[in-house]
């Protein structure tokens, strides 16, 4: 049996095996942030192409001013949970506005996107219940399932027929099953086949939860995500999402037409036992949601940028995820090749994400770009040019 500290020392050895003495890919010091798309790293001005800042709102004047006003008005933090310390006006207003945006009656705000999944899944499910989740779901979904004590059954990624077989095998337990999928999967940028999944879920009488973390503000005519885009909103019981990507803040939420959502406030430990989001964050998020709702041009710009980068990298012969989305993932043969490409890009002044197993599907190694509406066409072309210069050294899986 390995000792407590021995486990961490083993991790240090693994880190050195993969990265050598350089741990830069997983904790780059960002010395100064100039804008939604540029920062100083290693003393140099770098183009940021790995930030999830899909609508580029982190420096939007309306969001910054809203945060500044709330900071002066309500202070730096709430210093406790809403159950103990109460709900600030901004918390309640954000929940009203989220419910209105999704056209439902109920919304609940969590202090992080991670906590939204932890909090919702652990409140809905308990021992004896079943979580049937897409195998490629985010760690926060798996962790929420673990916290619940329910049986965790993954189904094959994006495969409604496989989901159908697994639900059939459950028999009467299907009635105590929550099916969980994501709008856009964060590693490869592919979308769930939501119409098929919703049909199977409805037929078996289960509840359906969709995590729109990467699709809020990205997909759908009004930016509500994949459920809106695929006209399946009536079939989705719970939408979970985050404020930390398209909305440029931090925090998470769940919306639902089901009144039982309100009782999650009494049943969800990740909601009850943590401090509520600070006023400035909530105010900035409200402002960002208003911008998202009133500026559809941002989504158009984002889609154009995503399509341009995807096409550029595809033409260079890089192997990419199957769908065009703001997550543009390049699949490499080995962690070494991915690390080399990542370092080459940073040296060329382009910051992207390095993703290695086991965080990735099927043991793949990825260099992941995320596109922003704030990127200019010239910036997208610069990213493509940097990938082009490194192409012959980057065998692609």
């Amino acid at each position, binding site marked *: 049996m390995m000792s407590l500290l021995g486990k961490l020392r083993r991790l240090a050895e693994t880190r050195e095996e993969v990265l050598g003495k350089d741990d830069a890919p997983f904790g780059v010091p960002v010395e100064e942030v100039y804008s939604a798309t540029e920062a100083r790293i290693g003393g140099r001005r770098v183009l940021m192409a790995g930030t999830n800042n899909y609508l580029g709102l982190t420096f939007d004047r309306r969001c910054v001013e809203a945060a500044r006003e709330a900071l002066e008005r309500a202070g730096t933090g709430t210093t406790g949970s809403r159950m103990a310390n109460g709900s600030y006006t901004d918390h309640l207003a954000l929940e009203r506005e989220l419910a209105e945006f999704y056209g439902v009656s109920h919304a609940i705000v969590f202090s992080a996107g991670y906590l939204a999944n932890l909090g919702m899944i652990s409140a809905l499910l308990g021992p004896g219940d*079943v979580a049937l989740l897409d*195998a490629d779901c985010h760690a926060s979904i*798996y962790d929420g*399932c*673990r916290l619940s004590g329910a*049986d*965790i*059954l*993954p*189904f*094959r990624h994006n495969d409604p027929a496989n989901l159908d077989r*697994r639900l059939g*095998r*459950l028999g009467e337990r299907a009635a105590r099953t929550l099916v969980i999928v994501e709008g856009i999967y964060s590693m490869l940028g592919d979308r769930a086949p939501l119409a098929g999944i919703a049909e199977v879920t409805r037929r078996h009488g289960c509840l359906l939860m969709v995590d729109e973390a990467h699709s809020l503000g990205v997909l759908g005519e009004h930016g509500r995500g994949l459920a809106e885009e695929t006209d399946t909103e009536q079939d989705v019981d719970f939408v979970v999402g985050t404020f930390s990507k398209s909305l440029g803040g931090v925090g998470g939420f769940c919306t639902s037409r089901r009144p039982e959502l309100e009782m999650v406030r009494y049943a969800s430990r990740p909601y009850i036992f943590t401090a509520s989001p600070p006023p400035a964050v909530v105010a900035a998020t409200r402002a960002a949601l208003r911008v998202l709702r009133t500026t559809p041009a941002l989504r158009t710009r984002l889609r154009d940028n995503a399509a341009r980068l995807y096409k550029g990298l595809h033409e260079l012969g890089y192997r990419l995820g199957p769908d065009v989305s703001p997550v543009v993932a390049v699949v490499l043969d080995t962690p070494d090749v991915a690390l080399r490409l990542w370092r080459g890009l940073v040296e060329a002044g382009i910051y992207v994400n390095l993703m290695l*197993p*086991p965080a*990735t*599907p*099927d*043991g793949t190694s990825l260099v992941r770009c995320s596109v922003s509406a704030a990127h200019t066409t010239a910036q997208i072309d610069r990213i493509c040019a940097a990938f082009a210069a490194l192409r012959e050294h980057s065998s692609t899986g």
Partner: protein
Amino acid sequence: MRVEEDTDLVRTLGLDSTTLINLLLEIEDTFDVAVPLNALADVQTPGQLASVIHDRLPEPG
């Protein structure tokens, strides 16, 4: 490498969380049996894995 009944899945075969889930999907499809991820928490060897699957197979006849 020869895999024995008592080969350590994690230390010897390097099974991580992703490969474990892939293995689970294969097991479900091969044996037509629902094995929850939680049931594998204490499984360290192929022998223990076989026992978990066996316990969930329907009674013959």
